[in-house]
């Protein structure tokens, strides 16, 4: 009951053609629909209409991120909880947003716009439901991740932003990084029994740090690195392993500077999972377990 998982991330790009070429040919997403100044993309295994929306705008950045709820009733319940917390909630009717039914939108304490939605148009994945092959066709271009996995946002007050997600939206904290004074520098939150659906690290309000796609295993992460390097994409970090989440990862930038990640691994937390704490002196290992460094670019650069 309640929130299930990340549904889609909507970002702005000053060069819609270039971004579309990158996300379809290098990342290997499927083109779901084109509008006048928008492009809707999905991963090959996703059943829903889209998981990434690109919109033309002179400035790069995040429009909003959207989580799917399990039942239609969850929208009204969560709308009430969000309003009680003091956020203004906007109802978006069916037909106002492409590929989905009614949704609610609100500004979260760290300034980003969040959406909750239940009904998503469902064209299905590319395999179908009758004797489907376990793999997509071998000629899919690019990295071709099966699905969107999680996102990371910045907040000036990580503790406050995290409390909102936990107390109002029912997220559960899997891991946190504490500074020497006990302040949260970063927290990882889940609804989908994975190490994280969203994470929040210290930084400017409203900023997007990255969004990440799932890959099946470490070997696929290596292939992704090969594809990125071949295409001249700027790699930010990796392939490597996180201490936090235990995941295997590479970070890289889309042509307009939005950080992307491909991610695999992790663990399966029950709702009563005891949270893990990283101390500030081990933050380097928490971020990048092999390098054990705190990359300033990784911490300071965002969109």
């Amino acid at each position: 009951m309640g929130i299930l998982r990340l549904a889609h991330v909507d970002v702005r790009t000053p060069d819609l053609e270039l971004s579309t070429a990158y996300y379809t040919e290098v990342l290997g997403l499927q083109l779901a629909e084109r509008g006048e100044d928008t492009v809707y993309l999905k991963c090959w295994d996703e059943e829903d209409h889209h998981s990434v929306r690109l919109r033309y705008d002179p400035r790069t950045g995040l429009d909003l991120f959207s989580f799917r709820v399990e039942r239609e009733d969850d929208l009204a319940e969560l709308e009430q909880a969000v309003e009680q917390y003091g956020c203004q909630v906007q109802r978006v009717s069916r037909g106002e947003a492409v590929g989905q039914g009614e949704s609610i939108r609100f500004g979260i304490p760290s300034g980003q716009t969040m959406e909750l939605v239940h009904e998503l148009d469902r064209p299905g994945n590319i395999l179908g439901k009758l004797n489907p092959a376990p793999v997509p066709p071998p000629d899919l271009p690019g990295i071709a991740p099966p699905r969107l996995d999680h996102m990371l946002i910045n907040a000036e007050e990580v503790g406050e932003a995290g409390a909102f997600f936990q107390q109002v939206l029912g997220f559960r904290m899997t891991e946190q990084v504490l500074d020497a004074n006990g302040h949260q520098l970063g927290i990882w939150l889940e609804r989908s029994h994975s190490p994280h659906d969203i994470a929040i690290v210290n930084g400017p309000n409203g900023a997007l740090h990255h969004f990440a796609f799932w890959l099946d295993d470490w070997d696929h992460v290596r292939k992704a690195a090969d594809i990125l390097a071949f295409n001249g994409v700027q790699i930010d970090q990796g392939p490597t392993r996180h201490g936090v989440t235990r995941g295997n990862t590479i970070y890289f930038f889309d042509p307009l500077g939005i950080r992307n990640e491909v991610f695999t691994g992790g663990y399966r937390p029950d709702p009563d999972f005891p949270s893990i704490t990283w101390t500030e002196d081990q933050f380097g290992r928490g971020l990048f377990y092999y390098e054990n460094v705190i990359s300033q670019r990784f911490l300071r650069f965002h969109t």
Partner: protein
Amino acid sequence: MSDRILRLQHVEVRVPDLELCTAYYTEVVGLIEVAHEEGRVFLKCWDEHEHHSVVLRQAPTYGLDHMSFKVAEAADLDYYTDRVEKAGIAVKRFAARELGPGWGEAIRFEAPSGHLVELVYGMEKVGNMLPLTNPPPRPANLVGIAPPRLDHIFIMAEDVDGTCAFFRDVLEFRLTEQILANDGHQLATWLERSHTPHDIAIVTGPNGALHHFAFWVDDWNGVREAADLLAFNGVTIDVAPTRHGVTRGYTVYFFDPVGNRNEVFTGGYWVDPDFEPITWTEEEMGRAMFYYAGQVNERFFTVHS
């Protein structure tokens, strides 16, 4: 509102040679012995927080004693007692620790296929093998395959449709995949609560039979390493590393020293609760089970415990 049934918590299996099986499950599979009592040994995987996920019970015959699923809240035991009793099936209730060390409060009942099913809440938490502050991604000095956790169970039933309906209608499992015979009845079904391709699967066969239980490994390379370890230790491999059509998972099947089938499994996909089930037709059953070979060896369907 509660998440109800979360996932498979443990399996208890009968073994005629407790010492031999304990050695196999701890040294070859690489589980951790948590406790033992007269005639029973309690084992867990390294990343599991609860007291045990596999119980070995000394018995003259091999096979499944029972399977247990974890529920999210204590009240879920009342909720399912009511539902199971309404289905005309008797439910027995047990206090915490009554059924063994580390055991939670539990209810037990018999599925239409004759299997003893348990739902449990409040298992003793013994922690995984990592600290909760600055943990490394895996412990050192693991032996054997050392899977991080138990994944799913596969049972047999004379009436797959009826047993599947019980798990769906009464216990609220969700169907992800099915193999349909040409006359429309279900030859096999896969069901989930944990947003994975399956927590339990049911295939046509004798009531009460265990086909296998499976441990998770991280990736295909982990499946290969498991096969190396199994072969090195002289374990009988039933199906060498391959891929399933159903679940898309990677797998190797093998037998414990007394003949209970084990699996290590990885891969698959994430499912929302309203996932539209996948159907395999009878002609494609070979690919459904083993995607590369396209056929199923006779032993896979006829040998069980």
